[in-house]
């Protein structure tokens, strides 16, 4: 027994157990990991250089860059999109003017599902939860006056990601910017859509094929673009714990790499462009441990399974968003504090880019004022708190290192479980992830109802009279205006060209890389909905099993 362990036990018996003020209860992280009173060197297993080491060196526990924020701050990237292309263009320019360094586009539900604004299924939804983009013209309008050679753009789009990406590429070309100089990300993480968020269109297999098409196309023509953002955010927000978020996300990531390698791609041609996206919620240390464990597990598994030659292929680069679910409708200003704590965890965890939520998001899309406070939150952390001075400043904390190990251990338990079920696709079909997430969500709700988990303003320190807050409303004329625009676009084109480009797309759907065919269809003025419908004819649509 180590000296630390012996001394710890002595201290525990003499001091803790005999403490006149006993500990209130047992303490757990939000994932349910039991936490001791205090941590000592013997709690951290293994060798320093194997597990922790230096930033910018394998296994990258301390960060992917040697100097992190001392060389370059994280990218401040506020997710925004509202109404139609005109409204979003205005908001994007506002954010750039106020210091945002990367764009991040939110699309409305019809767009997310590949439905044109003028489709009856889109009624009532156009422009409500993000921007409506049905045509090349919409994309051009949204990006009008923004220099695409200078800014990186992240687009939260999954089912129809390849098509929206096509709109972006063609818009850039029209503006004289070559694809090779474009920087940005399409989320394009279809696997997590079957687990959470649920904006799937096609069945899993063809969807996965389309994702690998974008990997291949990107590695050839858009070497600075991230063709995927492998996302835990939505899994977490749907109810998963931090452990589940991490395990399911990394399992999805490894599945994409496997598929791409199966296609014959060289791992070093695409792995450096894989990016990740995590949630940062209220359990401060557990979140930091999650980010550190994420980097370590990813680099270990990439090395072991795929043996890349480039060091960059081992990097887990990630974007973080603070937790929307952690925000309360009650006393909404308190959300500014929650977001600050979550943002700080992301920075201490070594994120590459960050979105901070606005305090009014339990009511609707953020107002300009709320979006400004969210932006300022990041700037205050970056420029006033000095947390950026040293890299991985919490590394070496006995508690944090122990917690990082715990996260890793529990993630591997899930890996084994998923593997024993036949992998990620099989586990999706069996409803495994959906059940796990639903179960966690239900348990969490119960804990809140029973007061075991405190939410200030919701189940403790409740006030009777809630202040009214200002809410952003998308005016009704936006939908009408957008429908008119799409209808006009459809009138002014050569239908025989549209038809022939869609026919080619259908014919090649299962055979070739579809990106060139999608781009050809876009140039011939096919709309988002038309391209998606052509593929639906070949691939069918996915209907999920209902799991409560």
């Amino acid at each position: 027994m180590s000296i630390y362990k012996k001394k710890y036990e002595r201290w525990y018996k003499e001091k803790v157990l005999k403490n006149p003020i006993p500990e209130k209860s047992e303490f757990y992280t939000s994932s349910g990991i039991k936490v001791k009173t205090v941590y000592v060197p013997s709690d951290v297993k293994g060798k320093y250089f194997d597990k922790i080491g230096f930033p910018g060196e394998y296994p990258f526990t301390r960060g992917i860059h040697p100097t992190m924020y001392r060389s370059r701050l994280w990218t401040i990237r506020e997710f925004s999109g509202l109404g139609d292309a005109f409204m979003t263009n205005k908001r994007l320019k506002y954010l750039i003017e106020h210091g945002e360094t990367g764009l991040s586009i939110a699309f409305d539900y019809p767009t997310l599902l590949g439905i044109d604004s003028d489709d009856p299924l889109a009624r009532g939804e156009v422009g409500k939860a993000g921007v409506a983009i049905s045509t090349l013209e919409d994309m051009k309008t949204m990006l009008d006056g923004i220099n695409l050679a200078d800014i990186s753009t992240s687009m939260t789009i999954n089912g129809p990601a390849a098509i929206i990406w096509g709109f972006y590429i063609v818009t850039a070309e029209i503006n004289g910017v070559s694809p090779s100089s474009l920087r940005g990300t399409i989320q394009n993480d279809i696997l997590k859509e079957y687990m959470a968020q649920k904006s799937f269109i096609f069945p899993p297999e063809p969807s996965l094929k389309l994702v690998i098409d974008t990997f291949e196309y990107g590695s050839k023509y858009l070497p600075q673009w991230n063709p995927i953002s492998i996302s835990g955010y939505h899994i977490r927000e749907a109810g998963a714990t931090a452990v589940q978020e991490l395990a399911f996300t990394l399992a999805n990531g490894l599945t994409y790499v496997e598929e791409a390698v199966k296609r014959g791609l060289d791992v070093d041609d695409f792995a450096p462009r894989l990016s990740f996206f995590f949630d940062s919620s209220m359990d401060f240390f557990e979140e930091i441990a999650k980010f550190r464990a994420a980097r370590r597990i990813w680099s270990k598994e990439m090395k072991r399974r795929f043996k890349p030659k480039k060091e960059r292929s081992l990097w887990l680069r990630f974007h973080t968003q603070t937790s929307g679910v952690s925000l309360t409708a009650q006393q909404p200003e308190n959300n500014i504090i929650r977001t600050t704590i979550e943002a700080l965890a992301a920075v201490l965890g070594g994120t590459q880019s960050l979105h901070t939520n606005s305090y009014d998001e339990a009511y609707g899309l953020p107002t300009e004022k709320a979006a400004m406070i969210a932006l300022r939150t990041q700037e205050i952390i970056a420029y006033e708190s000095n947390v950026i001075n040293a890299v991985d400043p919490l590394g070496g904390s006995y508690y944090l290192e122990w917690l990082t190990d715990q996260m890793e251990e529990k993630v591997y338990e899930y890996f084994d479980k998923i593997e024993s079920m036949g992998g990620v696709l099989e586990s999706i079909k069996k409803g495994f992830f959906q059940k796990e997430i639903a179960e966690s969500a239900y348990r969490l709700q119960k804990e809140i109802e029973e007061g075991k988990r405190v939410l200030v303003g919701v189940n403790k320190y409740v006030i009777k009279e809630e202040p009214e807050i200002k809410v952003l409303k998308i005016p009704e004329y936006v939908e009408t205006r957008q429908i008119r625009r799409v209808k006009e676009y459809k009138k002014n084109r050569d239908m025989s060209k549209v038809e022939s480009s869609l026919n080619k797309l259908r014919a090649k759907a299962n055979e070739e890389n579809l990106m060139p065919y999608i781009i050809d269809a876009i140039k011939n003025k096919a709309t988002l909905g038309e391209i998606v419908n052509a593929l639906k004819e070949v691939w069918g649509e996915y209907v999920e099993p209902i799991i409560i």
Partner: protein
Amino acid sequence: MSPEKRIKILIAKPGLDGHDRGAKVLARSLMEAGFDVIYTGIRQTPEKIVKAAIQEDVDVVGLSVLSGAHMYHFKEVIKLLKKYGASDKLVIGGGIIPEKDKKKLEKIGVAAVFGPGTNIKKIVEFIKNKVKRN
């Protein structure tokens, strides 16, 4: 109808958004509270929801929308219930819904809108009070 017949509830997600956490947690909690609950799954049209409500002879229709499209979908459901002579069903709603919209929805016949952070016991009590069996 025997007085013991349990209250029957349809939890539905009209529109395109896939945020089903709230709907699922509520469906399960209402089951545990002793109600008969049917959950439609995501991406339902108002037409489908109203038909299911009538076919299943439910007492309560619970609508969940988090995409901002609540005004359209809730109105459609209320309109169709009227059209098919099923206005007696109690309609409740939840989601990301601003206060002003809540009031508007209550005016057109939505019995109550429960926002984020609502204690489920409150919803259970509400339903029990409103749906009295003879």
